[in-house]
């Protein structure tokens, strides 16, 4: 009787312990579509021409938000993207990064092209009217706020550091903080890239 009493709880513990890695792996491999956050948009791209997100159909896309006067988070985010691209190797052929400005006043299409070009040809800078930008940040549930901080840099823009991984159909699959470990981003991007028909 005593032995039986110990067996079942022990068995349960073993099952749970065995399940832990299974749960981890299945959630990493299972990137559900995040409904309601994201979506198509059209902004102003390189050369001042309209750029629609739907133009990236068939590619896996990372959508980032920032501004060129930002010395810390924004270049760090794009640097992370550069490292991600390096890790993807050949598969990176179908990977793109979008950098949507939160400072359309100062970040014109030309400024953005020069800025993102530094990181790689696979990044596209996007601008637009403040209304258009706000529409996009609204759909992506990210936030930004201009702040007159008294800095000699002029106004600064406070913003969230969310970065969005979209599949080849433009659906949001993962939302990261900009400093998420590179490994996770690489793993997720590879999964979505493998999914491209």
């Amino acid at each position, binding site marked *: 009787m005593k032995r039986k009493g110990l067996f079942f709880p022990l068995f349960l513990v073993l099952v749970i312990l065995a399940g832990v890695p299974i749960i981890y792996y299945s959630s990493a491999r299972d990137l559900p579509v995040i409904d309601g956050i994201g979506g198509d948009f059209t902004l102003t791209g390189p050369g001042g021409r309209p750029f629609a997100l739907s133009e990236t159909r068939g590619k896996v896309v990372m959508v980032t938000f920032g501004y*060129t*006067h*930002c*010395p*810390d*988070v924004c*270049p*760090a985010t794009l*640097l992370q993207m*550069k490292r991600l691209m390096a890790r993807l190797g050949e598969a990176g052929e179908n990977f793109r990064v979008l950098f949507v400005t939160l400072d359309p006043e100062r970040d014109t299409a030309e*400024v953005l092209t*020069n*800025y*993102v*070009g*530094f*990181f790689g040809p696979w990044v596209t800078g996007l601008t637009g009217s403040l209304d258009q930008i706000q529409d996009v940040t609204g759909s992506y549930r*990210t*936030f*930004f*706020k201009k*702040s007159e*901080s*008294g*800095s*000699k*840099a002029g106004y*600064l823009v*406070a*913003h*969230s*550091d*969310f970065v969005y991984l979209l599949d080849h159909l433009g659906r949001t699959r993962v939302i990261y903080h900009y*400093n998420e470990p590179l490994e996770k981003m690489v793993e997720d991007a590879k999964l979505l890239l493998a999914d491209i028909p």
Partner: protein
Amino acid sequence: MKFRILLAAAIGSLLLGPWLPADEKGTAHPHRTGAMDKSRGMHHEMGVIHVMNPWVRAVPPGAPSSAAYLVLRNTGAKADALLAVKTPLAKHAELHTMVKSGAMMEMRPVESVPLPPGQYVKLEPGGYHVMLIELAHPPKVGEKVALLLRFRHAGEVRVEAVVTEGAPMGGMKH
């Protein structure tokens, strides 16, 4: 019996408290002392304030700002503070911190970076940093940049930072 255990736990935590690593950015991690002192980066032992691994972020040509980062250690018994930074690379250099404001991160200029005695203070991405404004030229990877640091008590300390893409490998990477 229970009371005695609680009392022992309370006294124990009071005694241990100061020795536990602090979590907020810009405060000390005493258990990492050894690793930091053996840093492979540039380590300037100038008087009481040690300056380690100063680096400047490479930014795109045309980018108006960059940032300088470093680790400071106040080896003295008296509190000090970093008050200002000057560099030929930028017209203005300001001390900034990063503050979380709801779901947003906000950079805010600060008057000084406090340096408690015996502690490490990190100026690192996402935390305190030196914002370099109106760059004389785009900093290129590998370039050496002179930084003149002014402390409240320790006076002026000149160090040479290296321009890198991101946090240098020998430095503090979380």
